[in-house]
């Protein structure tokens, strides 16, 4: 099946700005799904609110566009009631880790089989460029006009600490790695987190004088390094990308099936 067959052409053109990374993430995700050979009918995509959340409208899966920050909780209800479905949950940085931060860590802790994608462009794009929990100290935004004094999360470290059984990170520059990591995350049985560093040239780029979308992509190329590389030892400021955690852990729906067995015996 061609990537095009996963798209709802009826709903194009999309709403994203030129140069936005969200389309590249969509592309990488569809290539991953195509490679795994998943049937469209077995995929449920749940999203929250924001530019990233609009991905769900454009794909020909079962799609649920929900409320801000709560995508993982809706996904939890769907997965628990229909464990055979594949759940993919694309979220923005504000969606996943500000308003949805609590749900994020608890979903990671539960280890229910689903793939959380944090598309991290370090800004609230839909509302016009306010700082997010991932903007970082010293960044400019419409709500940090004199520079941001909030420190950011490290999505990978947070996910690992919260108990996610698969944690990866890549960027929109590394499109092949993106499709590869997303594919492994989707196949992984358990709660998977993939952070994709993405560019918002319209708001984050412009307010922080980072140049064009291409300049921002170049920045991802130059300031990241494969996980465990020697380059990181030489330059600790480099951001590592790759797979950080990939471990077998009891999956929540499987565990609940055991509870059902136990409860029925006790009857």
């Amino acid at each position, binding site marked *: 099946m061609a990537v095009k067959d996963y798209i*709802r052409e*009826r*709903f194009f053109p999309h709403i994203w700005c030129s140069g936005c990374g969200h389309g590249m993430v969509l592309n990488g995700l569809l290539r991953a799904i195509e490679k795994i050979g998943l049937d*469209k*009918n077995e995929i*449920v995509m*749940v999203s929250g609110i924001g530019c990233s959340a609009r991905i*769900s*409208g454009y794909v*020909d*899966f*079962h*799609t*649920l*566009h*929900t*409320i801000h920050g*709560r995508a993982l*909780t*809706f*996904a*939890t*209800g*769907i997965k*628990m*009631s*229909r464990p055979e*479905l594949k759940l993919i949950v694309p979220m923005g940085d504000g969606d996943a880790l500000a308003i949805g931060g*609590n*749900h994020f860590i*608890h979903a990671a802790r539960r280890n229910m089989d689903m793939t959380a994608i944090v598309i991290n462009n370090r800004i609230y794009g839909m509302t016009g460029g306010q700082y997010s929990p991932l903007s970082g100290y010293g960044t400019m935004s419409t709500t940090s006009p004199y520079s941001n004094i909030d420190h950011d999360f490290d999505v990978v470290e947070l996910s690992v600490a919260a108990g996610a059984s698969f944690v990866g990170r890549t960027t929109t520059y590394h499109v092949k790695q993106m499709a590869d990591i997303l594919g492994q995350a989707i196949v992984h049985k358990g709660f998977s987190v993939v952070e994709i560093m993405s560019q918002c040239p319209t708001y984050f780029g412009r307010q922080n004088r980072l140049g064009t979308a291409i300049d921002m992509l170049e920045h991802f190329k130059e300031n990241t390094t494969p996980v465990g590389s020697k380059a990181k030892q030489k330059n600790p400021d480099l951001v590592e990308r790759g797979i950080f955690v990939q471990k077998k852990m009891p999956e929540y729906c499987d565990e*609940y099936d055991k*509870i*059902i067995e*136990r*409860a*029925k015996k*006790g*009857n």
Partner: protein
Amino acid sequence: MNENLKFIQGNEVCVEAALYAGLDFYAGYPITPSTEITEHMAKRLPRIGGKFLQMEDEIASLCAIIGASLTGHKVMTATSGPGFSLMQEALGYAIMTEIPCVIVNVQRGGPSTGIPTHVSQGDVMQARWGTHGDHAIIVLTASNHQDVFAITVDAFNLAETYRTPVILLFDEVVGHMRERIFIPEKGEIPLMERLRTSVKKGVDFHPYLPREDGRLPISDFGGAHRYNVTGLAHDMWGFPSDNPKIVYGLIRHLVDKIQNNVHKIARYKEYYLEDARTILVSYGSAARSALHVVENRRSRGEKLGLLELQTLWPFPYYLVQEKCADAKYVVVVEMNMGQILQSVKVSVDRPERVFLANRIDGVFITPTDIRNILRLIEGKGV
């Protein structure tokens, strides 16, 4: 002894009724005075192969059951004031996306943390208007355990019929009180199932194209048809739209499907209304004290009657007007500052004859409290 005869808390009755109605998915978060519902669900659901989730908060609980309902399950969550406040946004989502679910609010004193272990009926208007935007909602209540059972089953039936959230507005007294209850046999109370689409797999399905009668057939999410669901204003495809004609049609549909059926949704009980000169209008546990006063005075030959409302919203204006038409006085008995009082005043022809007998101090309203107000109204002093 008949095993259908039980002596249990109202909260447990609600659980038994939900299971009777076909619930097989529940998510909740502990909060007084509704916690027993969540506890009993945790115990009962896995025994029948159902699913129970304790989520990280009330927002997550409601969102999880909405997700599960969409895939074709009968679902419920239970909470109290502070948790109900947290649920308001997701409640609006279920209204907008027309996903059936039942939300129990066992009311306690508010605002804020209030008096968690004491009774109140202070969430009546919140249940009506708590979530933002124009909308209609179904809110039911009951005053005794047998009625809690019946009305809980009804809540599921109405949620499935109208594809809407239904709020069960119980209170601390009904939730915690132990009382005799007879669990009906299967089949005694009819159950409604949601209307599923007859559109075949592979044929274009319009998830948000209501039939001429206003009903909206569903296709279980994750099943035969792939479609989009969104809390944004949407067209028949379930895709976002800001076309004024489409938005108008959607809002009218959401409101009309409930408001136009107010007669079918109205649930109530009446006691001695035929010749009543003074009518008490009450609901929930407050109606127990009201009924006590009415029966007591009737035994002395006084013409008192009780209209017990079980459907609070959509408010049955026509019913209150009709039943109270010949009454000299109408006294609304409730444990708040008069949240149903206003609707009763709007309903009757002579609003100046409508009075309030209430308590707002966390103490259950007694027959004496009501009697004192009656004496004042009748000019007899306290």
